[in-house]
């Protein structure tokens, strides 16, 4: 166990040894160090958001043919820090008629729910928070707390727009939890465990290859869970001003802001762990640091994909959002999950390659059926996906022209 | 597939066809008759198959094809039903299959399939014909299609089912079932044109008359079952001890043995079904049904069932009899009835002008022949005549239907209103309807027993010979006389219908019928000739022995002992040749020159002709003897006196008494006690309810307080009790 191959464990052991040398029992020492780690991890995550904000603004800017932040520091690197400082020193405004407890609780829940997910993320072969045996379910459960934050914010603000936004977004979040959980069950089924680390360990072959449909659904649903474009109904300025956080400012607003960025990245982490093999890669077992790097790289790719979608898609209407979920995603997720269960049962004793092939084939068949039949049905009911896309393209073009003009 | 399995299946296709036609395809003509013909055809095919199997099977008589299953549990034993095919049922099955199929095919043409629907046709009446325009714009009157076409085939299929069932079954009860279904079909088909008053009456008459026979037959079956404990043919007839006991034990009435009594009771069923004297009256009237298809059923197929039954119970009738002896009392009765009917019906036939009625009476007469043959113990001869008669009588009836059909066409064409069934209105049809003429001629010659070539000759000859050898000269002479008359009226019929010159415009415009009608005629005419060749006696001069007397051997085996061919005697042979030829010649001589529509015999015979034409006034006699008294009893005695005066009077008295009693009870008890008490109780509940109403506040939470309190109190009580105990 040397520093280079597994630094976190090394430092942990070293610290434990150091504290134990002070005459404290080994277990207590270990608990203390764990406590320190529990303190450090959220801190790291929050700091990491600074990078995320810069990165995202930059990427979106480039996508939309703008330079993005470029004034403060080299390449605008210091811009988030400046924003942060500004937010810290802003006045705490408590609007009239608010409901104090939920109003103040809401931003905490919004960030806390996201940070809670980090507990179960396996960063490398040796570094992970708690490997509880229901990790995958825990992710969903903690995500539900974020929902509470939003509904509190909307309710307590004493603002119609905020309330409307909260209604919308809560309906959306609760709805998209269903395909998300169903999609999540597919890797659980394939790995035969709900522990996040076991799921990662069960992926010499990435699950995205075995269950591409579930991966797709999980990815889109997680975008909807974060409430980012094209599902960013909660902050549709033209309709409801700034959404559920209309009445928030200063640090409380900043926490919502941070929570959103962190949530997007966290979801990429979860997605990577569930479908892209997590820290798996050549040599990751021997050199956990490599696993950490693999994990990070994969996550960044996924995260970039999310940003790219955010930067290129206009938002749905609320009814379209709900229709997409209940009429398309939930049935597909059900079909994908039950077909995966069936194939697993039938092909238990087959060679891995054959089993994976069958899984992939079944996924493709379901996708084909959905595209063929579903497309026809949707068209017959006046919901033209291609027309939607066309409209979206036009809107993007329009907004780009506008940004050029300004 | 085992032949036994096929036996089970034989009756079923027509039943299926019946159900399908009745329930499903009633509106579709082509589909219905296709279904019916396919049903009859598959039964026909299976029948022929099992027939060949049966013929090639050694020792069929001792070891018939049979299979059975438990049906009705009767105490410890179960009534078994089953199928069996022995020598007798094999030959019967053979001709039944052929004739039924022919009827089905023939019916398609007879009911004018493919013709337009008549504009005035209504269900329940024969089609009136329809006007069609040809390409030149001329309007023709052509026969129109039967309005209830599909229904007819449905009934026909049901009939076929019953007939097959009757033939292949192995016990009397199942036979009785088939028998009754056929009775129903007969009723339905005679009354097929229920719009005609005469058809309605005829249907009822047929049904009621045969019912008399059926009741006795049922009595016979019950009697037999009580004595034998089974109704299976083989278990009864094959059980020597049982047969002996039946033959010896007296029945207790008329000095008959049990076997004789049972046999006679069953034979009364035959009398009804086969229209023997004195229950013959229904058969001529049955000609009211669709000409001649139902008539044909009533002549060639169904009535054969009666004879079939009589042959079946031959061992019962002859129990205790040895060949050569004078017959048992039962046999004498049977022989007398048969012979008398044969002559009696033949005399009536001479004076009838309706082409179908002649044949109907001829049928009665011929059936009488068979019955008489049974009566004199000529078992194989009876079967032989049953078979040949079925073929040539079917041929004749279908031929007569064809004639009527042709003449009807002429009637429509000429617009002349004459009865298309009256032979006096015909004449000279041989040129117009050649196929019908030749086949009818063959049938007629077979019926009259034209020597050597026709089937009828061989079978009739055997019966005469059997009668002669049995020593019952009276029967022999009667039958010979009947044969003479048969030949006479047959020739009369042929001459009046086909020979000479047309006597009416309608006959002049008669037309040959379509192939669906003539094809069955051709096929049946082959059998009318060839069926006889299977039973040529070995001792016959010149040609005897050329062909083996297969029929005698085959059916004779049924009796257990090899049918000992009676010593050949020239007397019956000569008699049968002479009466046949004489009758034919006489018939031709008398009727060859008829130019106007009057029967020359009318003048010669005078009042006797009237007597014959009115069928000895039997219908009138029965009306006077039975129907009038029955109506009187029901209308005057039962209805007016018994019902209205006596019973109604008693009832009214009782009613009045109860009314009075009721008033008393009401005023004395009901009003003061019951009503007042009831009202008091009701108002008590009302008040109680009003008092308790506030309890139902509709407030869930109040209920819950009460509930929890009560639960707690009870828990406390329970705990206290537990502590105490």
């Amino acid at each position, binding site marked *: 166990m040397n520093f280079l191959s597994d630094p976190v464990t090394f430092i942990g052991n070293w610290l434990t040894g150091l504290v134990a040398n002070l005459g404290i029992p080994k277990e207590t020492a270990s608990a203390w160090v764990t406590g320190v780690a529990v303190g450090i991890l959220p801190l790291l995550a929050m700091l990491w958001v600074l990078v995320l904000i810069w990165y995202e603004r930059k990427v979106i800017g480039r996508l939309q043919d703008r330079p993005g932040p470029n004034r403060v520091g080299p390449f605008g690197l210091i811009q988030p820090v400046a924003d942060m400082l500004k937010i810290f020193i802003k006045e705490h405004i408590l609007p009239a008629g608010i*409901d104090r407890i939920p109003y103040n609780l809401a931003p905490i829940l919004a960030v806390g729910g996201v940070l809670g997910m980090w507990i179960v993320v396996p960063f490398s072969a040796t570094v992970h928070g708690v490997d*509880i045996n*229901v990790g995958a379910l825990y992710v*969903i459960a903690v995500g*539900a707390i974020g929902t*509470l934050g939003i509904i509190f914010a909307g*309710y307590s603000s004493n603002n119609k727009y905020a309330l409307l936004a909260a*209604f919308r977004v809560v309906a959306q979040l609760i709805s998209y939890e269903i395909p998300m959980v169903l999609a999540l069950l597919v890797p659980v089924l394939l790995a035969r465990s*709900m522990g996040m680390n076991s799921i990662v360990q069960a992926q010499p072959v990435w699950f995205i290859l075995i269950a591409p449909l579930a991966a797709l659904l999980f990815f889109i649903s997680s975008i909807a869970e974060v409430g980012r474009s094209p599902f960013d109904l909660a902050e549709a300025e033209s309709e409801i001003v700034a959404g559920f956080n209309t009445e928030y400012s200063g640090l409380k607003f900043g926490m919502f802001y941070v929570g959103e960025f962190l949530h997007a990245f966290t979801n990429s982490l979860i997605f990577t762990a569930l479908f892209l093999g997590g820290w798996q890669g050549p040599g990751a077992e021997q050199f956990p640091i490599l696993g950490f790097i693999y994990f990070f790289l994969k996550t960044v790719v996924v995260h970039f994909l999310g940003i790219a979608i955010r930067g290129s898609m206009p938002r749905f209407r609320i009814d379209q959002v709900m229709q997409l979920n209940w009429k398309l995603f939930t049935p597909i997720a059900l079909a994908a999950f039950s077909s995966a269960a069936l194939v697993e049962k039938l092909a238990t004793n087959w060679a891995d390659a054959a089993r994976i092939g069958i899984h992939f084939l079944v996924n493709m068949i379901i996708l084909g059926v959905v595209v063929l039949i579903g497309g026809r049905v949707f068209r017959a009911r006046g919901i033209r996906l291609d027309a939607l896309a066309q409209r979206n393209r036009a809107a993007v073009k329009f907004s780009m022209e506008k940004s050029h003009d300004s | 597939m085992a032949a036994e399995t096929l036996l089970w299946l034989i009756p079923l296709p027509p039943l299926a066809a019946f159900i399908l036609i009745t329930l499903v395809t009633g509106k579709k003509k082509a589909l219905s008759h296709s279904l019916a013909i396919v049903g009859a055809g598959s039964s026909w095919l299976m029948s022929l198959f099992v027939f060949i199997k049966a013929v090639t099977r050694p020792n069929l008589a001792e070891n018939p094809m049979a299979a059975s299953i438990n049906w009705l549990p009767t105490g410890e034993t179960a009534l078994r039903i089953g199928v069996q095919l022995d020598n007798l049922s094999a030959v019967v099955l053979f001709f039944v299959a052929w004739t039924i199929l022919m009827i089905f095919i023939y019916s398609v043409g007879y009911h004018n399939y493919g013709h337009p629907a008549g504009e005035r046709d209504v269900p329940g009446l024969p089609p009136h014909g329809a006007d069609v325009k040809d390409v030149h714009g001329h309007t023709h009157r052509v026969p129109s299609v039967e309005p209830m076409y599909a229904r007819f085939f449905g009934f026909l299929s049901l009939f076929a089912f019953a007939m097959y069932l009757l033939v292949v079954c192995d016990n009397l009860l199942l036979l009785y079932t088939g028998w009754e279904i056929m009775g129903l079909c007969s009723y339905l088909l005679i009354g097929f044109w229920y719009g005609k008053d005469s058809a309605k009456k005829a249907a009822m008459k047929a049904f009621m008359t045969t019912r008399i026979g059926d009741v006795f037959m049922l009595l016979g079956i019950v009697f037999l079952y009580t004595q034998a404990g089974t109704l299976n043919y083989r278990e009864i007839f094959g059980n020597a001890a049982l047969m002996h006991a039946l033959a010896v034990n007296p029945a207790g009435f008329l000095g008959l043995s049990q076997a004789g009594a049972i046999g006679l009771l069953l034979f009364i069923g035959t009398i009804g079904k086969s229209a023997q004297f004195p229950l013959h009256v229904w058969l001529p009237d049955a000609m009211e049904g669709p000409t001649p298809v139902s008539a044909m059923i009533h002549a060639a197929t169904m009535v054969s069932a009666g004879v079939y039954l009589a042959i079946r119970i031959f061992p019962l009738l002859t129990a205790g009899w040895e060949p050569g002896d004078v017959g048992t009392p039962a046999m004498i009765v049977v022989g007398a009835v048969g012979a008398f009917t044969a002559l009696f019906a033949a005399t009536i036939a001479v004076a009838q002008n309706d082409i179908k009625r002649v044949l109907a009476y001829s049928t009665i007469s011929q059936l009488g022949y068979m019955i008489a043959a049974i009566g004199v113990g000529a078992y194989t001869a009876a079967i032989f005549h049953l078979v040949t008669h079925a073929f040539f009588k079917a041929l004749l009836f279908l031929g007569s239907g064809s004639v009527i059909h042709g003449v009807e066409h002429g009637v429509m064409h000429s617009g002349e209103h004459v009865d298309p069934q009256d032979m006096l209105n015909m004449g000279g049809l041989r040129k117009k309807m050649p196929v019908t003429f030749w086949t009818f001629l063959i049938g007629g010659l077979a019926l009259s027993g034209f020597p050597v070539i026709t089937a009828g000759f061989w079978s009739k000859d055997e019966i005469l010979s059997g009668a002669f050898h049995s020593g019952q000269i009276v029967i022999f002479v009667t039958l010979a006389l009947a044969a003479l008359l048969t030949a006479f009226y047959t020739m009369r019929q042929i001459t009046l219908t086909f020979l000479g010159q047309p006597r009416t415009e309608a006959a002049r415009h008669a037309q040959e019928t379509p192939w669906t009608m003539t094809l069955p005629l051709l096929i049946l005419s082959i059998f009318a000739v060839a069926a006889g060749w299977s039973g040529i006696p070995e001792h016959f001069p010149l040609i005897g022995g050329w062909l083996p007397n297969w029929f005698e051997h085959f059916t004779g085996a049924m009796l257990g002992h090899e049918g000992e061919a009676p010593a050949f005697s020239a007397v019956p042979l000569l008699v049968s040749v002479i009466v046949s030829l004489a009758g034919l010649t006489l018939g031709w001589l008398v009727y060859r020159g008829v130019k106007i529509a009057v029967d020359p015999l009318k003048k010669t015979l005078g009042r006797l002709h009237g007597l014959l034409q009115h069928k000895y006034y039997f219908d009138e006699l029965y009306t006077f003897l039975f129907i009038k008294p029955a109506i009187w009893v029901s209308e005057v005695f039962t209805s007016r006196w018994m019902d209205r005066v006596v019973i109604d009077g008693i009832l009214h008295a009782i009613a009045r008494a109860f009314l009075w009693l009721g008033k008393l009870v009401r005023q004395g008890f009901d009003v003061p006690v019951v009503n007042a008490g009831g009202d008091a109780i009701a108002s008590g509940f009302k008040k109680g309810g009003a008092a308790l109403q506030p309890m139902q506040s509709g407030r869930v939470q*109040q209920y819950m307080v009460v509930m929890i309190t009560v639960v707690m109190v009870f828990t406390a009580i329970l705990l206290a009790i537990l502590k105490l105990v």
Partner: protein
Amino acid sequence: MILDQVIFLITALVIIIAAILVVSVPKMIHAALWLILALAGIAVLFVLLQASFFAVVQVIVYIGAIAVLVIFAVMLTRKAMQDDGPQLNRYSVLAAAVCLMLFVVLTGMLLSWDGASSLPVNPAVHPDTIINLGESLTNPQGYLLPFEVASILLLAALVGAIFIGREHRAGKEEE
């Protein structure tokens, strides 16, 4: 283990206080919030009972779904119950007395039972109880039928709730 007991006592205290607040605070939305707190405390208890699956399910179902639904309903019906009116009805004093008595009776019964003071049978729960549970839920010899019946119940409730909750427009004929 003292730590366990301390955690339990704190959690229990939080649960009880939150529960009492649920039934007593005048503002419905606060009652819902306190309910969430009580439910979260119960989830902690489940963790203490080493039933982590149920802890997570508790959070997902009760906090994530039921509590949110309740808050929704509260918001939708806000006008009806102005939060300043009396929130307790006239039975409240009686009810409090009855409930107190009920608690006394129940506690008395529990304490008189010998098994009440028993300790966990094997402290280290086999980690695979969740697998046991899953298998018994899908085993026809186990609880497959009740499980399926429960799912049918849920489906029926879903359909019924949608039907009842659907708005019947005035002037439009009822189906």
